[in-house]
């Protein structure tokens, strides 16, 4: 019990700390007092620039991290697979490809990017379920299927970008994440959608707990397990789609955070979901801040940093081998 409370306090303090640090440091650097004063009274030109340009980026990073972590928790619960992650399984790649598709063909729809991202994520998720269901969603099989799905959608996306370039249409060229040019419009999109997804995830947390039992047992308790699975999957895909449509593909956040969170606060999803959200927010904001400040004025995208941390982490999980069958 104590360990859980301490973990919460530490992660909240860390998140607040890195948020303030991230706001204060960069191409324009201000002191803490100037920052707080400027935010409250809007009396500093420098702080106003920070509010306009850096705050949206920070908020989007925080939300993206929280969303990806919670999406990972849900995927791992519903697939009973500790390696499930929207990025690894190609759900983000599907979402990314469909987002581009939406941008090209229905650019007028305000909500279209998220909607198309959701469709793409759902398509990827269905492919994963169809191809690895019979083997009981074995962790490695899901990963292999995910690699294939991911490669396919990344390829399709690149093909689409190239075709557009041929016709002199410029579209978002990079498949990598982009937290750089975030505006308050992005914030207005990601905050309500992201919060909605996280709240829905929290509401289904008793079901996630229940999925710790075997399917057989869940059915014996009078629960419609397919409906539960579909609902949790839909929420998880929705979260991944929101993050991808706004921040691009960031792999591994949904893998690392739930894993560490389970070690710290246990597997009760009432606690695990909020904790993972906080920890994910901390991780992505830290990665983005780090990438922004490390070799300024050049930037390393947060997704690149996550790939560098996440790759070894996945290898570490794979080496734990026999633990893979139980989350």
């Amino acid at each position, binding site marked *: 019990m104590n360990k859980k409370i301490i973990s919460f306090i530490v992660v909240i303090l860390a998140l607040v700390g890195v948020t303030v640090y991230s706001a204060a440091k960069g191409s324009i650097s201000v002191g803490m007092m100037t920052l707080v004063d400027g935010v409250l009274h809007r009396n500093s030109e420098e702080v106003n620039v920070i509010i306009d340009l850096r705050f949206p980026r920070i908020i989007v990073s925080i939300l993206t991290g929280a969303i990806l972590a919670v999406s990972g928790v849900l995927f791992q619960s519903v697939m009973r697979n500790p390696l499930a992650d929207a990025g690894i399984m190609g759900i983000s790649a599907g979402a990314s490809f469909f987002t581009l598709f939406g941008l090209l063909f229905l650019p007028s729809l305000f909500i279209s990017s998220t909607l198309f991202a959701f469709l793409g994520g759902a398509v990827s998720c269905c492919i994963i379920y169809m191809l690895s269901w019979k083997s009981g969603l074995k962790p490695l099989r899901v990963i292999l299927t995910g690699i294939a799905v991911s490669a396919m959608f990344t390829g399709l996306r690149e093909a689409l970008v190239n075709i557009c370039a041929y016709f002199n249409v410029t579209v978002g060229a990079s498949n990598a994440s982009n937290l750089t040019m975030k505006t308050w419009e992005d914030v207005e999109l990601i905050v309500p959608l992201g919060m909605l997804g996280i709240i829905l995830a929290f509401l289904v947390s008793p079901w996630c707990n229940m999925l*710790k039992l075997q399917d*057989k*047992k869940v059915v014996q*308790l*009078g629960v419609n397990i397919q409906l539960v699975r579909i609902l949790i999957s839909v929420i998880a895909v929705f979260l991944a789609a929101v993050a991808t449509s706004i921040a691009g593909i960031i792999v591994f956040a949904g893998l690392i955070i739930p894993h560490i969170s389970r070690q710290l606060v246990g597997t*009760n999803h009432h606690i695990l979901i909020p904790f993972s959200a906080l920890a994910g927010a901390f991780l992505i904001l830290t990665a983005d801040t780090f990438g922004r400040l490390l070799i300024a004025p050049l930037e390393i995208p947060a997704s690149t940093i996550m790939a560098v941390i996440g790759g070894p982490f996945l290898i570490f999980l794979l080496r734990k081998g026999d633990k893979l069958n*139980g989350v």
Partner: protein
Amino acid sequence: MEFKELSFSYDDKAFMEKLEGKIEHNKITTIIGPNGCGKSTLLSLLARGQKHSAGSITLDGKDIYSYKHKDFARKIAMVNQTNHISEDMTVEELIQFGRIPYKKIWKQENADDKDAIEWALECTNLQNYKDIPVSALSGGQRQRVWIALALAQKTEILFLDEPTTYLDIYHQLELLSLIRELNQVHGITIVMVLHDMNQALRYSDMVIVMKSGAIKAYGPPKQVITQEKIKEIYDVHIAVNEDDKTGLYIVPLSI
């Protein structure tokens, strides 16, 4: 509970054909038979774990598939042969799942739920273990936890699939006397699959003997577990003895 003309097939191969039988109210019924005879399958069919291909199973005069999922889970609870649970869940958290048939997922526990959980802990003698992780328990205790989970469902009927298989002799006896107590004190109808014929003799009111997907005998243990029957079913010679202390018991002699 009754079943009529019950047939079951998987992969298009007929496995059971036209089984007839019943489960008597407030009795302990034990299903025995050689490996692969369909004991567990019959149990699973009666508990809606698998769907029969033809025939009917009725509970309180109604077809079992006419019950809603949750209503059925208030009628019959099942203890599976193998169980798995994540490591850090406590005994009480696990037993709380037994209340799922009674409440919406986000509802708090009400007094009924609390009473049922308390009662389940008490019956299985686990009051002192409720805050301990299930993974820290011994095999015998763990099996009691799964029974407690089923008891929290507050059903009239309890199914157990080979409840003693992975236990040593002490815990086998402990478990069987718990099952008998549940039947005699709390009036729960018990249906279980056992391998040990002596246990079946001692703890059952009725025995169903199966072989190759068919019911070969049904009746009180004394009538069913006889030299001739066991030779026919298992192809094993046994001696059936009786003395004042132990009652009826069997000794396998040769094959």
